[in-house]
C-alpha cells in the first residue's frame, strides 16, 4: 500500500502549496457537488437521508480566514441556489453570510488554533446558529412554527460532514494574521 500513502502525501503537499484562490475554488466545487446531489431525492436502501447544509460548512471554514469578498459572493450565490427549492429568495444567503460573519468574528476574537476545545466547540455553536437562523426564517416566512426534527437531523448531518470535509475550506490564511486573503 506504499503507492496509496505516496499518493496521499503528494495530495497533501499539493494542498499545502495551493494558494487561497485555488483553495476557494476547490471548496466552491465541493459545495456545488454536494449541493447538486442534495437537490435530488435521496435515500439509502429505502431510508431517507438528511442532507447537510454544506453552505454553512463553507461559511464556517472560510470564516477562519477572515473577511473577504470572494467567499461572501460565493456564499450568497450558494444561498440563492438553495432558495430555489421553496425558500424565500435570500433566506439561505442571509444565513450563510451571517454565519460567515460570525465565524470571522469568533476566529478574530479567540485563538482557536491553540485551544482544541474552542476549535471543536465553535463550529458546533456556529453551525447550530446557522441552522437556527434557517429555522427562524422558514418559520417567519411560512407563518407557522416549522418542524424541528428535520432541522435537527440536518444539523447533525451538517456536523458530521463538517468534521469530514472541514480541511477543504481552509484557505491557508488566518483571520488573526495580517497576511494573505482572498478577494
Amino acid at each position, binding site marked *: 500500500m506504499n503507492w496509496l500513502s505516496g499518493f496521499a502525501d503528494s495530495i497533501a503537499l499539493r494542498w499545502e502549496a495551493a494558494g487561497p484562490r485555488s483553495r476557494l475554488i476547490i471548496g466552491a466545487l465541493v459545495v456545488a457537488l454536494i449541493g*447538486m*446531489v442534495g*437537490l*435530488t*431525492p*435521496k*435515500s*439509502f*436502501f*429505502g431510508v431517507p*437521508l438528511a442532507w447537510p447544509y454544506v453552505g454553512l460548512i463553507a461559511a464556517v471554514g472560510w470564516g477562519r480566514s*477572515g*473577511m*473577504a*469578498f470572494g467567499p*461572501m459572493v460565493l456564499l*450568497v450565490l450558494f*444561498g440563492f*441556489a438553495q*432558495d*430555489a*427549492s*421553496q425558500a*424565500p*429568495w*435570500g*433566506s439561505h*444567503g*442571509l444565513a450563510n*453570510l*451571517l454565519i*460567515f*460573519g460570525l465565524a*470571522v*468574528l469568533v476566529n*478574530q*476574537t*479567540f*485563538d482557536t488554533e*491553540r*485551544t482544541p476545545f*474552542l476549535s471543536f466547540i465553535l463550529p458546533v455553536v456556529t453551525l447550530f446558529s446557522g441552522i437556527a437562523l434557517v429555522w427562524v*426564517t422558514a418559520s417567519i*416566512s411560512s407563518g407557522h412554527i416549522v418542524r424541528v426534527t428535520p432541522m435537527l437531523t440536518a444539523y447533525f448531518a451538517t456536523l458530521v460532514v463538517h468534521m469530514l470535509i472541514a480541511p477543504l475550506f481552509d484557505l491557508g490564511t488566518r*483571520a*488573526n*494574521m*495580517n497576511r494573505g*486573503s482572498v*478577494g
Partner: protein
Amino acid sequence: MPRLSGKGYRQRPLRRYGFFVAVAGLVALLLLQTSPRLSQGVEPIRTAASDQLFHVTRPSLMDRLSGASAKERQILELEARVRELAQYKALALTMAERLEVYEEILNMQGEPGGAEVTARIMAETNGPFAEALLANAGATNGVIEGYFAENDRGLVGRVVQVGQRSSRILKVTDFNSRVPVMGEASGLRAIMFGGRDGFGRLTDLPEQGAFLPNERILTSGEGGLFPRGVVVGHVRGVEGKEIRVDLAMLNGQLSYVRLKPAISIPTPEAFPVEPEPVELAEGDGS
C-alpha cells in the same frame, strides 16, 4: 479564555462594509417578498430554476447505485397493476354472483366437479411420434384416463394412459390431439389439433363467420372430453385456410400440472315404455 485583538478585523473596513451591505440587501430582499405582488413576480424565476435544478422524478446517483430507483419503479408498476387487477376482481366477483343467480333461476346443471390432483412433470416426450408428458400421479391418486391437465395459463393436454403412480398426458401440441374449441367472442366452434411448429391449428371451421383476430380460444365442452371454458390460447393469424392458435400453456411453466376430471355425462336412461292397459272385457267385474 485566550483572546486576540481584533486588529485584522478593524483593518478591513471595505470588506466589513461590503459584508453589512450584503446582509442588508438580503434582508431587504426577504422583506420585499412579503408583498404578494412582488412575490408572484419572482415566482417564474423560481419555476425556471426548479426546472433546471430539480428533476424530482430523476433518481439520485445513490439510488441508481443501490438499485433503489429500479426497485421503486418496479414497485410503482406493480402497484398500478394491483389496482387494475383489484378492479377486475371486483367485477369478476360481481359477475360470478350474477351468474350463480342466473343459473339458479334457470335451474341449470353446472360443470360436474371431481377430485383434482396436482402432479409434477417427471419427463417430457417431444419426439417425432408424440408430444406427451409423464406426471407423477396415477391411479393411486385417483387419476383415471380422460382427465385433462392444465397449468397456470391454460390447457396442457389429456391423460391418455394411467399407471399406478404415473400418468401420460398427450399435449395439445401433438398432431393427434383433438380439442373441441370455440371463440370466446365470436362463439364459433372448431376442432383444434397440434401443429408441428408449436402452434395449434383449427379445423372443421364453420362455413359462415370467421374467428376474430387475437380472439381467445376456449374449450367448447362438446363431446365431453373437456369441460367448457378452459383457456386454450388465442388466434394468432390465418395462413391460407388454416387458423393458427397461440397456445396459452406455453407461456406458463410446465413443471407442475393440475389434473382435473373431465365431464362425465351419464347415459340417458331409456325412454320408459308404459304397458298398454288391458281393456277389460265387457261383462267382467261386478
